[in-house]
């Protein structure tokens, strides 16, 4: 007999659709509950609010899960979670600093998508177009990208070696990835 952990997310959604057994959905939710909780903590900055959020998002999940075709549950749940948190924050307009945060995050929210950056996929990492684009990056971006992706160095190690803050390393990687994406799209 298979263990329940072995069932894929998609399978569990199918089982839930057929049986309406909430425990199935609960089991699926539990796989990612710590992530939902983490994201809630990030936005609400309060443990109790975060716990309420996790419970609220499960209710939302029950309502939404049968309405959509879901191929990748994890990223779908991420969007659902983020949407919930941002809506919640927007409804608390009195808290001005949160509002500002929301506006900043909104931009990011729009950018998030299912499609992986090629450099994040092992099998595409050796792609010629990608490598050619890496060579075209600015020094710092290239250093950080290569050390991080091809030499398995942590942010900390890179920051020590190059004498820059970890924050800077992360932003070089971020910007480098964005430039890579543009470059790859241009070349194809």
């Amino acid at each position: 007999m298979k263990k329940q952990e072995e069932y894929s997310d998609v399978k569990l959604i199918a089982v839930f659709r057929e049986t309406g057994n909430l425990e199935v959905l609960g089991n699926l939710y539990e796989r990612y509950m710590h992530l939902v909780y983490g994201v809630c903590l990030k936005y609400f900055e309060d443990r109790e609010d975060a716990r309420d959020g996790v419970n609220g998002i499960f209710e939302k999940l029950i309502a939404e899960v049968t309405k959509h075709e879901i191929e990748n549950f994890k990223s779908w749940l991420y969007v659902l979670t983020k949407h919930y948190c941002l809506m919640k924050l927007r409804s608390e307009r009195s808290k001005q600093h949160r509002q500002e945060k929301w506006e900043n995050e909104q931009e990011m929210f729009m950018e998030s998508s299912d499609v992986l950056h090629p450099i994040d996929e092992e099998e595409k990492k050796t792609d010629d177009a990608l490598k050619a684009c890496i060579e075209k990056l600015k020094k710092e971006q290239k250093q950080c990208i290569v050390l991080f992706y091809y030499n398995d160095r942590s942010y900390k190690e890179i920051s020590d070696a190059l004498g820059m803050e970890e924050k800077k390393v992360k932003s070089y990687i971020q910007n480098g990835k964005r430039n890579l994406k543009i470059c790859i799209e241009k070349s194809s």
Partner: protein
Amino acid sequence: MSKRNKYSRLSWSDIFDYLEGKLKGRERNAIEREMERDPFEAEAMEGFEKVSREEAEQDLSQLRASLSRRTRKIRWVGWYSAAAALATILVAGTIFLHLNNDDGGIEKFEGMPEMRESGKVKELSEGEQLSEGEELSEVEQLSEVEELSEVDEQNRVTEQPGLSEENGESFEGDGAVDEEVVELAEDAELAEEVVEAAKEFELKSKEIDPDETNAEVQAGQIDGVPEVNLADEAMSMADKGTNEAERGVIKTDKGLGEADKGTSVADNNIIIETKEYAAAAPVLPQPMSSKSAQRASKLRKRELNDTEAASYKNQSNEQAIHPAHPANGYAAYFEYLDSSLVFPPDEKNIDSADVYVNFLVDTTGRPGDFNILRSPGEAFSKEALRAIKEGPDWNPAGRDGEQIESSTTLWVVFKKKPHK
């Protein structure tokens, strides 16, 4: 590679091991790569930075408990009437057995939960009622009928609070017991796989149910203690059980981590047998800022002097438009260095070292004209040069479609690594 796959979905202990700085080097990188890949994980990590591991564990076990209450409550409402019916049968059957055989009755009764799990409870208890019933005298049968009706009354009494309170928890046991039977009854309708999957979700409750049912039946039989308390107790015990099981898992993870450390410590002591892991990255020629130089001086024995830094800079200005790079790509090149570099066996005082090597790549793609920019010692320099000289070809740099000689710099990293 296997290490990386382990983190394809970050676990609880991964997250806090990372945040607490317990992971180093490649393991750390593996987590960070996963976060780059998946913004969900990255944002969750940002949230976890705000709490301690203990706080987060506390919150999550609370959340798991409320999730399981939430998902079971609904089911209980749906299956309620069937649950009451099954409970009646169970209680009646138990008392029946007890009456028939004073000594053996208890044994059989204790066996009930297992029989129930196999889904044959209904048939079995009914079957026994029939066969053993035949042997009863008329008087006994009469008294048994009385017992049954009493049981029915007890059941009715306990049903009421459940209905009015809509508590759900107090009838957790009933709901769980009954669901299996109902699901088995629906067996024919559901696809086989689906049923199998659904049954998997009963595993947890199965472990709890026998006790709960025992408690329930005993309560009804002995003195009619309200079921509510017992079922509640069983529930909270079950929750605790889950928490403890989880803690157990985390402990196991820690244990493994410590075992790993133990291995590496042991390996460090036997240096000759120790394999090294080392890799290199290209460091593009770049003048050292005073800040980075300061940092570097802390980490390394030797610092770049001004002359070297200057020549470094000049070379960077001559950098071609398409710089030289390993013919098979950097990834393959680093893999080669990883497997090729041997940690100098006499260097017992350090377990990692960086060597910066600048060299020319000629138009045929061979490296030459080596210049060690930084190294902790002769042994490391020699080994780094050996590896590069014996290593795979490079693709020469190109300018305007023409191949040219150019300089490049590699950051070769020596690290001891434990035996696999």
